[in-house]
């Protein structure tokens, strides 16, 4: 039996052998790609569609116009620029600060041994299974009363929303980073300590630069997650010019908005995605290792 298998393969003609080895792989890949790319092609087609209505949009573009993009920046009812800015103003600092905070915690978990370390780590894994929005009612009450004392951080403020996002800072990214920090040899710390470096100097001067890739990935995942958040943003920011992209673009597809807004919406989607797609593609190597790293290193 061990002999018969290779013999059978050898006797196959060349084309069939190629198909059996490689051809089917291309078939699968192309079939999946069709499924994967149809909605994206459709968005592109809709964004350049001169009419901008859903009914006049088909999969492949029938006309070409930049009208939708122009309207995105000229229609007073669609403050796209403001939305984009709002999203960035909220997501960039929130991602930065939360990654900084969780890298601090990851350093503590990776380099120090103290009582309650393991329970705390497990607790972090557990609490991040409860997404913040499950407690929307409570968050609503909390920020209602914060707003009474500090109007800058109450409901309908960007700062309040950022605080909520940062509340989830300690979570999955702490685990990811701790896993990475663990792979940095402890001997380096010891050598630095002997040279007279303090724990802060070791962290900022050595660990952080060495862990740059994982920090970049965690930051990007945090950033994209914040950009995509809909529920908290829709709860916190209700004034039209204050909305984020997710909340604002949703209003363009609402039932009572004009039919021609679909094209504007598609154009907005396209512009939004340029940012994230560029980031993902340039860092795809790290993303793959970052995503699996969590599982393999656990």
């Amino acid at each position: 039996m061990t002999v018969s298998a290779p013999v059978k393969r050898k006797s196959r003609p060349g084309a069939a052998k190629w198909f059996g080895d490689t051809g089917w792989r291309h078939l699968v890949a192309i079939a999946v790609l069709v499924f994967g790319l149809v909605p994206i092609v459709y968005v592109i087609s809709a964004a350049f569609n001169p009419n901008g209505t859903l009914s006049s949009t088909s999969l492949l573009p029938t006309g070409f116009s930049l009208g939708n993009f122009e309207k995105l920046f000229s229609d007073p009812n669609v403050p796209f620029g403001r939305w984009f800015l709002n999203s960035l103003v909220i997501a960039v600092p929130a991602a930065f600060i939360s990654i900084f905070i969780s890298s601090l915690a990851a350093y503590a978990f990776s380099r120090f041994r103290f009582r309650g370390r393991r329970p705390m780590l497990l607790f972090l894994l557990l609490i991040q299974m409860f997404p913040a929005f499950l407690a929307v009612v409570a968050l609503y009450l909390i920020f209602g009363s914060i707003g009474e004392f500090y109007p800058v951080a109450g409901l309908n403020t960007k700062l309040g929303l950022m605080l909520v996002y940062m509340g989830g800072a300690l979570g999955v990214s702490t685990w990811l980073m701790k896993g990475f920090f663990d792979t940095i040899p402890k001997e380096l710390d010891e050598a630095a300590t002997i040279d007279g470096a303090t724990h802060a100097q070791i962290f900022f001067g050595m660990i952080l630069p060495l862990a740059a890739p994982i920090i970049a990935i965690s930051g990007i995942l945090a950033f994209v997650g914040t950009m995509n958040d809909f529920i908290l943003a829709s709860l916190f920011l209700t004034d039209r010019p204050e909305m984020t992209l997710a909340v604002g673009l949703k209003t363009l597809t609402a039932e009572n908005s004009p039919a021609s807004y679909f094209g504007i919406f598609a154009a907005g989607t396209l512009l939004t995605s340029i940012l994230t797609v560029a980031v993902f593609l340039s860092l795809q190597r790290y993303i793959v290792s970052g995503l699996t790293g969590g599982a393999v290193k656990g």
Partner: protein
Amino acid sequence: MLDQRPKGSATAAGLLIKIGVLAVVAALAVWAAVPLIAAEAWWGLALEALVVAVIFYVYLQRRAIQLKYLIPGTLLLLAFQILPVVLTVGTSFSNYGDGHRVDKEQATEAIIAAGVQQTPGGATYLLAVGESAAGELTLLLTDTADGSTWAGTEEGLTELDDATVDPTGRITAAPDYTVWDLAELNERQAELAELAVPTGPETGIKVQGLSAFEGASTRSYDEACDCITDSGTGTVWYADNETGSFLTEDGEAALVGWRVTIGADNYLDVLTDPDIRGPFLGIFAWNVMFAAGSVLFTFAIGLGTAMALNKPSMRGTKVYRTLMILPYAMPSFAMLLVWAQMFNRDFGLINELFNLNVNWYGGTWSARAMVLIANTWLGWPYMFLISLGALQALPSDSLEAAKIDGATGVTAFRKITLPLLLIALTPLLISSFAFNFNNFNAIELLSGGHPFGAGDAVGGTDLLITYAFRQAFGSSSADYGFASAISVFIFLIVATISAFMFRFTRNQEDVYS
């Protein structure tokens, strides 16, 4: 790269930074204390002082260094994750919601104000109506005498700055409020007729058409019988402290009640009330189906694609992989909205491409198929990436050994590759299940819970989380207590899943290593 200066000067620089940071903390603390002192919120002040004291202690001590790194995240975690969870649990034991927003005193005042009759010479107002961000009905009033603007709720009257008014003086926009247009005003006139704004022990503001007036009430509260008597109509409402409402002798409740603890009633309702239990079980079953289906389909497609592309000698794998990341890189909220449009019955792409005429949003199962298809599209690239990563990390010797032993494609996959993959990927699969279990975005942005039967509060594609969200913030009357109870149910379910995950992965680790 490392600072090699002697320890003294190194800590001096560090000391300066530390002093700077602590100074900022102290400045923030002073800034934060001012409004608390002004409002005489002593508990808040004590809490703030405690937090500041902890921060100063942690950064000035030298023994427990790990605390210096843990404290920033821990404080945020406590304030914005753990406190909300605790409050959610607390709210779930109360009747908090529309009609039960205020305390008993305020409820009494509101009921008395509802009996207001116009008195000669009382203030009159131009009326606009808005909803606060919390969905609370608010009268936006312009005093006809001096043009000052006010916001009135059942809790009382507050001066409103920065309101935009039209030439007649009526408020057209105000920060933090969604102002109703005339059509909505007409439609919801009944709600307005019941609303009254208390301005004093027995005076209040009531709505009349498009204006409002202040007057004296014919109702009064009597502490002896804990009841409110209307001298005009002779109606008497007795306080029921268990349900937090004033009831007439016929058991009819006054419109405004107050907030009380009602014990486990919200939970018991889910378990015993047939009107709630039936839909709840239905949602739960679909919720599990949705999460399991999403994981299954995305993993099947992702793994299949990864297997196909996991051949180093194959040409074009890089291009394929780059294109396959695209759906993952697109902003998911926007793509969900695109999918929602693609399933449009009349003009959508899906019906057009396949020459169908399916009303996707109309039927329960077509809507469910729709959300699963769209959610699979969103999720498979992630599964593809992690499967590819795990496949490439598989120990090649066991596969070669299998080949030598004569295991061909399917057998090798089933007996060797898949079990090894599952060991590595099970934690990710389970967290994907937990994520999809609460995938609010997918449902809210795709179907909004549709289809709804006539008069149903539950839609065919509703998940527990979208259902709870609608209970709390939807257009129908808000019931925060019940919504919180459902949130706690979801907590428990997800916690069970995570506990299961820990147990499961730990067992596997033992096997693996």
